[in-house]
């Protein structure tokens, strides 16, 4: 039993999963519109659109990058994003242990 547990622990490593949460395109984003207007006022007339969102960094142990992504995807579906109004995408980076 302990051998199995040890081997599981050995296979685990840390990953950083960056979570980018944004409002669905169909949802009006008054923050983004205000920021765009501000940039236009500063003289950045080329700015056509800004969408505001959230950025979360989740550090976790997992057996693989795809395992880490699967776990954080579940977290997003259950809590980190609201499926009614938001979408998300993930970027997974392995972290150096020790």
């Amino acid at each position, binding site marked *: 039993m302990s051998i199995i547990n040890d081997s599981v622990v050995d296979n685990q490593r840390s990953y950083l999963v960056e979570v980018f949460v944004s409002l669905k395109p169909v*949802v009006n984003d*008054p*923050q983004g519109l205000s920021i765009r207007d501000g940039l236009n006022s500063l003289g950045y007339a080329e700015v056509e659109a800004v969408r505001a969102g959230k950025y979360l960094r989740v550090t976790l142990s997992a057996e693989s990058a795809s395992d880490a992504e699967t776990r954080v995807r579940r977290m997003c579906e259950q*809590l980190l994003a609201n499926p009614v*109004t938001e979408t998300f995408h993930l970027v997974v980076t392995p972290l150096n242990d020790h």
Partner: protein
Amino acid sequence: MKFGVVVFPGSNGDHDALKAVELGLQEEVVPIWHKDTSVAGCDALLIPGGFSYGDYLRAGAIARFSPIVDAITSFANDGGPVLGICNGFQVLTEAGLLPGALLKNAGLSFSSTWVHVRTETDRTPFTVGIDPGTVLRLPIAHGQGRYFIAPDDLATLEANDQIVFRYTDSKGHEDDAHNPNGSVAHIAGICNQRGNVVALMPHPERAYDALIGGDEGLQILRAVVHAGLSAVSA
């Protein structure tokens, strides 16, 4: 009739709700701490306004992990009357007891003012006896009250008679000028399909006496007392 007011860390409308029931309705009322696991024999639950858990992540998102929410869900599934007010509305949508979501106000500012809402249905325990079309004057105080639901789900909401209140002018006509937060279809309050779980962004518990600016919110709280009595006698 015994009311329960659920208190989360960051609730700030709990004492308004307790006073509205105690002084306005003169019914029994108890606070229920969010770590409790039962609704303490209450006949109706009020989920008050405020900023539960600091509105972290999204308004209402963290409150649903409080132990009391399982008890609220069981109570609601058994048909018990539940009224979510302001942050309570946000908590109920995040907990999946009501459809849709509440977003930052379209105007971006926190709105604290009095509004008018038109009652759309009398089939809920909080509107029974209030004729559809009745206009109530209630205060609002929120930064994230813009009700959103996808177009298909909005059609379902309409078809199921789940829209309970709409923002209007004092005569009961809706237009963009009287929609304080940009809510889709001017929606101020909704209910679940069964009708026993109701929530709205305005604060009926802050309008229980003319002394505090208005008493028309009392009709919503009183309705559930009448609904409860009729259920007992039925």
